[in-house]
């Protein structure tokens, strides 16, 4: 080492008065030279140094915002709620890409087979999404979550809403393959019915079991209705939509009645 930092150089650096070249040279030197680092540490008041250090820690520590978290915050969602939603497994990009692909295939099939394959699969997307969004054994942090003040019913509602919104948003992509616009909307109420039904049944048994039961019931119900009905797509149009709307209200009431069972980890 051929030189050391003089008091004048240090004072000038501390007061932001040194040139860029001199500052860079001094910083490089400090990395190498322990005695000069000690001089530098003493040159700044401890308050200021602590403030700067706290700022650096905060900048380094702050977890990187996920794209969804950023988007939600831009829409005015509270920062901590946005973070909870962004952590939900079934709103991660990999899941959404898989969903978009499956629905796109169903939508492409609609051109030759009619809209039924798409309409059967689409409402099951949030059902599976909810099943992997929380609940034992799929969510590894389930028990810690339930034991927290946010845990239980509130967390379930936050995450179920996130899954529903994400599923609907992603269905716009495969929807572009459909010939008629109405096929893009008639599955929304059935999706809500299926999701709410999964949540209600999950208060009696495991969430994954509930998801399987509802999926089977849904496919069987649509198949039976289509076979029995005189007009095509009867499961989704006309009076069917009124029945779905009624079911949504009924299931919402049931869910509220059963909400305490989300506060426990067993007996479900």
């Amino acid at each position, binding site marked *: 080492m051929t030189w050391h930092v003089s008091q004048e150089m240090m004072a000038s650096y501390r007061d932001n008065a040194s040139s860029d070249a001199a500052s860079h040279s001094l910083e490089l030197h400090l990395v190498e030279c322990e005695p000069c680092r000690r001089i530098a540490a003493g040159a700044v008041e401890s308050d200021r140094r602590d403030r700067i250090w706290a700022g650096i820690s905060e900048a380094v520590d702050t*977890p990187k915002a996920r794209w969804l978290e950023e988007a939600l915050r831009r829409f005015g969602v509270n920062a901590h709620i946005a973070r909870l939603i962004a952590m939900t497994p079934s709103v991660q990009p990999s899941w959404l890409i898989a969903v978009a692909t499956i629905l796109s295939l169903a939508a492409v099939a609609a051109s030759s087979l009619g809209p039924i394959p798409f309409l059967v699969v689409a409402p099951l997307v949030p059902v599976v999404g909810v099943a992997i969004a929380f609940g034992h054994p799929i969510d590894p942090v389930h028990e810690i979550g339930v034991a927290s003040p946010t845990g239980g019913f509130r967390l379930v509602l936050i995450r179920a809403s996130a899954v529903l919104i994400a599923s609907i948003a992603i269905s716009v992509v495969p929807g572009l393959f459909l010939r008629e616009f109405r096929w893009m909307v008639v599955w929304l109420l059935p999706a809500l019915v299926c999701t709410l039904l999964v949540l209600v049944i999950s208060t009696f048994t495991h969430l994954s079991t509930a998801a399987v039961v509802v999926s089977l019931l849904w496919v069987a119900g649509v198949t039976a209705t289509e076979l029995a009905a005189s007009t095509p797509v009867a499961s989704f149009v006309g009076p069917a939509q009124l029945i779905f709307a009624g079911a949504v209200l009924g299931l919402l009431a049931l869910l509220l009645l059963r909400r305490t069972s989300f506060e426990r*980890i067993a007996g479900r």
Partner: protein
Amino acid sequence: MTTLSGNVELVGVGKRYGSVQALGQIDLTVERGITGLLGPNGAGKTTMLRMMATVLAPDTGSIALLGRDPSRAEDRVEIRRRLGYMPQEPGFYRNFTVFEFVDYVAILKQVTDRKERHDQVREVLGMVELTSVAHRKIRTLSGGLRRRLALAQALLDHPEMLLLDEPTAGLDPEQRLRFREVVSQLPKRPIVLLSTHQTEDVAALCERVIVLVEGNIRFDGTPEAMSDIAKGRVWIAPQPGDEAMLSWRTGDGKYRHVGEPPPHAALVEPTIDDAYLLLAGDRAVGITR
């Protein structure tokens, strides 16, 4: 049942899983300080801690936690705000960093101010000496480090009631010492209840020991009082014997007997281990008859 005290109170608490009685009729009050819950696997320790953590409801009896009733929704939220809980199998999001994970739990604990939350995360990571791995992904951590991470999240927000289910399982001796140091130096003397089947943890750390066997309390007192149970019932002899409840060969080639002595046996001072073996019987060594 709501009491004015800030203790943990169980009155006639029972829990059954199918045909298995996990907990009998438990009556128990736990006050501030460190209490150890000692018992063999399947004794009901986890069931009891889960009830105190408000995630499991008892079939019979009533529970009051920090003076509140966990069966009431508004009380439950208040209890959870003041609770730190490390489950037996905590589970992690493996792709999160250590910092992200603890930050996530802090959000669940409703520490909404970002600056305050991050300060708390740094504090608990410092307490369990995980600061140097704060930005490593959880999937790259060893079992011991994960255990410390599980402890860190439980320490968030200075809980008044800290429930730790098998906190020292998988820790090496040095890490166990560090764990004891952290728990014994917690500020404001919270209620700490930790389950373990390691008698050394209890002897080194706890002011009170509760021994749970087959869902029932077999002992409740200080570690010293527990050792005294075995007074006059622990023997050293040059040969093995069938009369003792348990006997084993020690490092110096002699046999240690708990219970009835063989011929030519000499009485020795008991340890908490001996007392535990007497209280838990065959179950302590994993024999079920």
